[in-house]
């Protein structure tokens, strides 16, 4: 009798959870469904529809959007298909730009995160707060301000002229460098914060152990510190790379026509009468596929390495 009571209570308790498992998870599934899956499915569906003359779509299934992305069939669409390099080129340039921005963020973000994580606990929150302060200002305003800072008669050039480092203003606006600067400035905190979290958990006795075992500072960094904080570095890189790849503000405002990126390409398809919704949706789906592919390869390697 005395022994049976707790058993019974345990069984009925797990019964409660078992019976209600689905119902209790409902809000989560609803959220994931409505805000994550549904938009992707909609985007996928739209990419297979026929374009309406002034934006919008008609419900006729076609592969025209993907065909337009990958193949060139001449002006009237009656020539034999050739590979269309325009959009692949834009994608390639975007990946390259986003990769470079990620690398810049890593080179500056890692020492920054390291510096903050090695301060006294109370000073850390102050430093973290300082890092996030620029982000209280709207991204658009920050990007436009960047343009003012680096234009021919802006403060940067004025200063360089004043110091005598240059004799005539550098034209920085509408260059790859300007886009890089914009992306770097936009996404730096997304690199700093995950690395900070990893470094803060790092056990500095590991560095002492490495030094004790005859490793100098660089060897310790390469063989011990970087591998141990790698999850933070990877998380930061993903958080910078993915939005950089789809960014359109920085390329539009700082890069001009020469440095057209995926984000701007997609944005244009959904704007005004020149738009082509199915094509924009197809470009988005291709971008999504690339990003998911990269993440999957990474996740696969991670689980292998973790064994």
């Amino acid at each position: 009798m005395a022994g049976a009571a707790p058993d019974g209570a345990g069984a009925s308790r797990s019964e409660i959870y078992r019976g209600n498992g689905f119902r209790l998870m409902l809000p989560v599934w609803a959220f994931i469904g409505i805000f994550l899956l549904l938009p992707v499915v909609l985007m996928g569906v739209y990419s297979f529809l026929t374009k309406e003359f002034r934006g919008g779509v008609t419900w006729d299934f076609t592969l025209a959007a993907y065909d337009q992305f990958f193949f060139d069939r001449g002006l009237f669409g009656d020539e034999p298909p050739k590979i269309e390099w325009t959009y692949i080129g834009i994608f390639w340039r975007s990946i390259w730009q986003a990769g470079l921005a990620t690398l810049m963020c890593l080179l500056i973000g890692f020492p920054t995160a390291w510096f903050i994580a090695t301060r006294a606990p109370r000073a850390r929150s102050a430093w973290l707060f300082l890092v996030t302060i620029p982000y209280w200002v709207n991204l658009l305003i920050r990007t436009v301000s960047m343009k003012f800072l680096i234009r021919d008669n802006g403060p940067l050039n004025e200063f360089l002229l004043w110091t005598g480092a240059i004799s005539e203003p550098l034209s920085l606006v509408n260059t790859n460098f300007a886009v890089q600067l914009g992306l770097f400035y936009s996404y730096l905190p997304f690199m700093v914060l995950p690395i900070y979290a990893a470094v803060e958990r790092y056990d500095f006795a590991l560095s002492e152990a490495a030094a004790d075992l005859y490793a100098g500072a660089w060897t310790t960094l390469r063989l011990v510190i970087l591998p141990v904080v790698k999850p933070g570095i990877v998380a930061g890189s993903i958080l910078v790379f993915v939005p950089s790849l789809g960014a359109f503000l920085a390329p539009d405002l700082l890069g001009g026509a020469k440095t057209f990126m995926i984000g701007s390409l997609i944005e244009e398809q959904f704007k005004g009468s020149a738009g082509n919704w199915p094509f924009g949706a197809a470009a988005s789906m291709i971008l999504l596929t690339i990003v998911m592919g990269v993440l999957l390869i990474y996740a696969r390697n991670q689980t292998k390495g973790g064994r």
Partner: protein
Amino acid sequence: MASTEIAVDIENVVKRYGPVTALHGVSLDIRANEFFTLLGPSGCGKTTLLRCIAGFEDITEGAIRLDGEDIGPLPPHRRPVNTVFQHYALFPHMSVTENVMFGLLRLGWTASDAERRASQVLGLVQLSDFAARRPGQLSGGQQQRVALARALAPRPKVLLLDEPLSALDLKLRQAVRVELKALQRETGIAFVFVTHDQEEALTMSDRIAVMSEGHVQQIGTPREIYEAPLNRFVADFIGETNLLDVTVQAVNGGTAHLTLPGGHAFTCPAAAVASAGQGHLSVRPERIALCAPGAGDLDVRVEDQVYLGTDIQLRTRVADGEAMVVRIQNAEVTQIPETGASVGLKIEAGAARLLAD
């Protein structure tokens, strides 16, 4: 066992952190082949001293010599000493073998030589079957042995151990003590072992340095430290003891004439460190025998008995208030005096120490 060749010569080492002085001019020699223990309560400077030898802390004054060579200016990665860290500090992203090979590869060993040495050392600590595992997949005791193997692999001149047993549970700790001591004999490397656990120190060490507040209080074999403490701190810190504040009237021929604060005068055999004046009498509870009232050195009243299994502890009090603890063996013939009974205490010859401070 231990030769008299000196491995580490620590001369007048002072360590200051701003206004705080952690080490006040510590001097000691650690011989080659010996198991040397730095023992003291937390904050006594024992870990600081170990970190100074390893090179993690710069010394403010003095010199540390290894085989006669001043290693003060060398950074940690150039000192031929290795450390077993308190929480092991194993590299979590490397296998057990890779952890053990780490130091060897940095010293320029070839991968195959390093691997051979790693498997040899892992055999020594009985971890051969776990060579491919990651530290996270091992128990605390196994991790501790990996840390030991990793530090022993490069054949350091001195092995530094920073409370390596403190994270293990009691049973395991006792087993590892024996293994550690055997390992030290086998390898012939000087071990410098830091601990706050006096039992650990007594059972494993060839010699012990007892430290307190940045000073070395006494250096000696476990027996010397336990039986012939030089001062009140050592007597009190190592083992259990009865410490009585006494006024020394005279000491002649190994017999001390003493007065307790309450005015009770008695004589007892005592090895004297202090001469006439104020002093402390230290008597180990197990070195006191019971006898009939009036027949011993002191008469006491029994207040309480504590059954400890192998021993029985009697808490007693001298007429004018001084507490005395007596430990008697739990044998069949033992007659345990009842609470309130009056008994005499006979202090064994040579067991009592008169200490100046």
